[in-house]
């Protein structure tokens, strides 16, 4: 099963390979990895998407937490969370019909056209990994030329009480 692990680590050189090495040493595949600064200076946030059964992921999270410079690591998948990733999709179009199909699909998936030419479009898609994958799959028959994806970022939802307040229960 797919798991998204969130890690806060002191921002020092050598910490990223140390964390990646924990996965590679165990033959554990990283499906995506996002590294970014946080509100706090000198602390980086990592979002790692990987697959494995519960005990494997539990061990991985423990090992991450054990690292000297890791401030926290947890499996976000277990929590009520929001997860997003972004993709640029380069699509080729050969006719006006295809052009319309691409634009329709983009709109269904709430994606934006960020570049266009006679030959095609670049579409910017944001969503959870299923949404992004869904759009790519739908566009494929039309001629997807290139895709770059960011990898996931994830955040825990607001506590239940606060959520209820906003949604009026």
């Amino acid at each position: 099963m797919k798991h998204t692990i969130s890690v806060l680590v002191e921002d020092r050189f050598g910490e990223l390979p140390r964390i990646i090495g924990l996965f590679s040493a165990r033959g554990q595949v990283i499906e995506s990895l996002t590294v970014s600064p946080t509100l706090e200076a000198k602390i980086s946030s990592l979002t790692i998407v990987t697959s494995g059964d519960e005990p494997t992921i539990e061990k991985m999270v423990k090992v991450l937490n054990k690292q000297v410079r890791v401030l926290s690591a947890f499996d976000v998948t277990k929590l009520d969370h929001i997860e997003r990733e972004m993709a640029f999709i380069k699509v080729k179009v050969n006719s006006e019909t295809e052009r319309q199909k691409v634009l329709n699909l983009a709109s269904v998936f709430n994606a934006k056209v960020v570049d266009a030419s006679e030959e095609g479009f670049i579409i910017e898609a944001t969503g959870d990994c299923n949404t992004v994958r869904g759009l790519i799959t739908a566009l494929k028959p039309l001629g997807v030329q290139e895709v770059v994806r960011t990898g996931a970022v994830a955040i825990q939802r607001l506590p239940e009480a606060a959520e209820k307040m906003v949604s009026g229960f």
Partner: protein
Amino acid sequence: MAAIMKELIKHEVAPQIMRGARIVCEALMREGVDTIFGYPGGVVLPIYDELLSLEDKLKHILVRHEQGAMHMAEGYAKATGKVGVVLVTSGPGATNTVTGIANAYMDSTPIVIITGQVPCALIGNDAFQEVDTVGITRPCTKYNYLVREARELPAIIKEAFHLAQTGRPGPVLIDIPKDVCMQNAPFIYPEAVAAPGYEPQTFGEVEKVKQAVAKMLAARRPVLYIGGGVIHANAFDEVVELAESLALPVTPTLMGLGGFPSGHPLALGMLGMHGMYWANMAISEADLIVAIGARFDDRVTGALNKFAPRAEIIHVDIDPTSISKNVRAHIGITGDARSVLRQMLAELKAGEIAIDKNRLVDWWAQIEGWKAYAPLKVEKSEDVIMPQHLIHELHRLTKGDAIITTDVGQHQMWLAQHYPFNGPRQNITSGGLGTMGFGFPAALGAQLAHPEKQVIAFVGDGGFQMTSQELATAVLAGANVKIIIMNNNFLGMVRQLQDMFYDKKYASVNLSGNPDFVKLAEAYGATGLRATHPDELRDVLARGLATPGVVVMDIVVAENLNVYPMVPAGAGLKEMILN
């Protein structure tokens, strides 16, 4: 910055400006280091230059190979509980330490390794003797550093020592480029370390400790299973007290030998692949296993799906990743072995719980039955020295009080089975990594730490030749170290595996071509003795142990023996081959 200001105010005078190399030495002295095991080379010369003037405070032991330096530092650390220190140059100097670093990592030994590095400007240029030392050692160190400026040195060295010896101990490496050693910087030694992500837990969760104690009182077939953690945590007295208060049978791992007195009536001896039949039976039939500072290694558990099927598991370990790693713990307690044991003892006393003296009568009767059914076999011969006989003689002469180091293999297992260690820090061996060549340099390190104690390297003829050049180091250091070579002219444990599982096809295990070990010893200026017949054994051992200085005893033993009992790899603990 505030900390630095505070330090400056406290000093009243400006801190001393010194070059990086000097800062390294000053910091080592602040950490109480008295001995460094090392080997010089181009980029560490600034440090060696400083060391020469500090000879009386920081003794440098010049080894003959960097792997030897690591094992010596490990022997030193294991014998004392202090941090061992190694100093080597860049490139091959650093890579030669890797086996020793991995060994220390597996066996949780506190060591700080200082490696030289090419100057910062040359890093990444394939410079002479350049290697990515932090990259190579990252997976086998607890932490490592590449220093980029001399002013970082005090905080890094302070932190390295802190990391090496707190929590689950381990090796920490500091890679210092040559120009950093030459740079001037103020020497301000910090009082505390700043590692917010590093907070080893000392005490166990109170509620879990209570639950654990209740389980121990209720159990009818309990076993106390102790590992190297009780030795690192100096928990010997607490283990004895807990075992005695509850009449618990105690079985140590290889690394836990000496964590409980071997001659104690509650002691079962070692468990696992070459463990005692009754210890393996007890763990297999237990209803409760209390694991303290042990990690359910595959050499201990055998096939996991057959391991202790009826037991509940209480697992106490300083390293949370060890808990439920191989065997799922019903109660997992993260904490230091001694602190948690004290909590357990306090809980036992506080409750004024009446302990039913008879509750384990049936269990002990069953254990005694297993003991009687398959006692440890000692083969006897009039013509050839049997390894077990050799160890019994060694025990007779040392009374279980010597520090004995071993490599890996048959000699190691026989010693673990047949030499009852009285106390902690006497058994120094390569457990997790199983490194040939560990024993002799480790003995030298232990001997230099404890000049007054009897230190014996009990090694095989194969392993000894992996680090025998350290005879020069030992003789030069005037060490009083005794080497007993259990010489069967074979890589015995590998031969045993071929004997049992590869149709007796002995590929590449015959060590014909071994040198004359007596002459080898003499070539280095050490004493060499040999025993080939049982009649000579007593005299050679007695003379060898009594002769001052470095003594090599070449004890020629029976060639074709196997270590029993044995649990074949992948089998359950109860599926022991007894002979």
